[in-house]
């Protein structure tokens, strides 16, 4: 995957349909493949519509509820670390594919980072679709060879005495980082804690801090 993909000017061969505001060649291909499969009764239009809704319903807010629960409930945290998928399902988060989920706990000794070097495998059921930078070459190529330098580009400096562990996702096994609970949050409610947990903290490129949350306490 090269940087070209975000530079290319969508100059598709079929000028007739590539003019501004008109669907491009690949959009036509997507619709044609879908309609042919529906005509052959291999898939149903309703399934596509429903799956678009499922994709829209998955955001990092789901992962944040999982993390906040783990922070306040040690028994849940144990179950989450033992079987990530089962523990998320316990909270009503369905997995719409047959992927497994391994939750990696950040501690004072270990900082975890997730990547998919081959493509873009990501814990979609709990975080939604990955950001573009996660799918592009610099992150995929470098996260496994110089994670500290990559983290520094995100503004995250991990102390030398903390081990950095990088987990490379696969089609069947996805990872989610359980960030450390920030200091000074002892009196926070579960909901207030969840507001401190962002997408980047669960990928492992940033720590959760009192300032990371989208809502002010």
């Amino acid at each position, binding site marked *: *995957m*090269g*940087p070209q*993909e*975000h530079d*290319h000017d969508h100059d598709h061969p079929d000028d*007739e*349909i590539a003019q501004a*505001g*008109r*669907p491009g060649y*690949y*959009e*036509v*291909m*997507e*619709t*044609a*493949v*879908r*309609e*042919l*499969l529906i005509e052959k009764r*291999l*898939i149903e*239009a309703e*399934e*596509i*519509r429903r*799956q*678009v809704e*499922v*994709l*829209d319903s998955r955001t990092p807010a789901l992962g944040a509820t999982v993390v906040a629960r783990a922070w306040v409930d040690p028994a849940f945290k144990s179950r989450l670390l033992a079987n990530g998928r089962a523990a998320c399902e316990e909270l009503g988060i369905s997995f*719409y*594919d047959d992927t497994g989920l391994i939750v990696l706990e950040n501690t004072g000794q270990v900082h975890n980072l997730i*990547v998919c*070097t*081959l*493509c*873009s*495998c990501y814990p979609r059921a709990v975080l939604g*679709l990955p950001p*573009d*930078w996660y*799918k*592009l*070459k*610099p992150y*995929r*190529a*470098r*996260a*496994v*060879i110089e994670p500290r330098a*990559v983290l520094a*580009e*995100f503004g995250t400096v991990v102390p030398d005495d903390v081990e950095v562990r990088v987990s490379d996702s696969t*089609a*069947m096994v996805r990872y989610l980082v359980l960030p450390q609970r920030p200091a000074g949050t002892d009196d926070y409610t579960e909901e207030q804690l969840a507001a401190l947990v962002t997408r980047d903290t669960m990928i492992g490129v940033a720590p959760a801090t009192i300032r990371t949350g989208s809502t002010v306490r």
Partner: protein
Amino acid sequence: MSQTEQLLKRLPNDIGGEAAGPIQWVDRELEPWEKRCHALADVLDFHKLINTEEKRRGVEALGAEVIGNLSYYERWIAAFANILFQKGILTPGELARKMDEVAGRWQAESTGEDSPPARP
């Protein structure tokens, strides 16, 4: 290692550990057709027509030049078409005819020549 040895040992997707530039700190909302393409991938997986690993290999089989020039979901739909041809589920001629029909329908719709069914 010679350049051709490198080509054999590392397929286009296998970039972990390679040198690369700074993190490209970009993100954007998907276009509607890209989201439908993603939903199509999931539905193909549900029906065991194309699973995630076949999809990844299908993208790899497009080759480095195509991979380098197409965007993420452009690669996906191109790979799906090829895999469906290989499995005998679709034929290239069938897809070409359907694409002409879809393009013609949208063209007519945009020029208001007809009242074809609404786009999904």
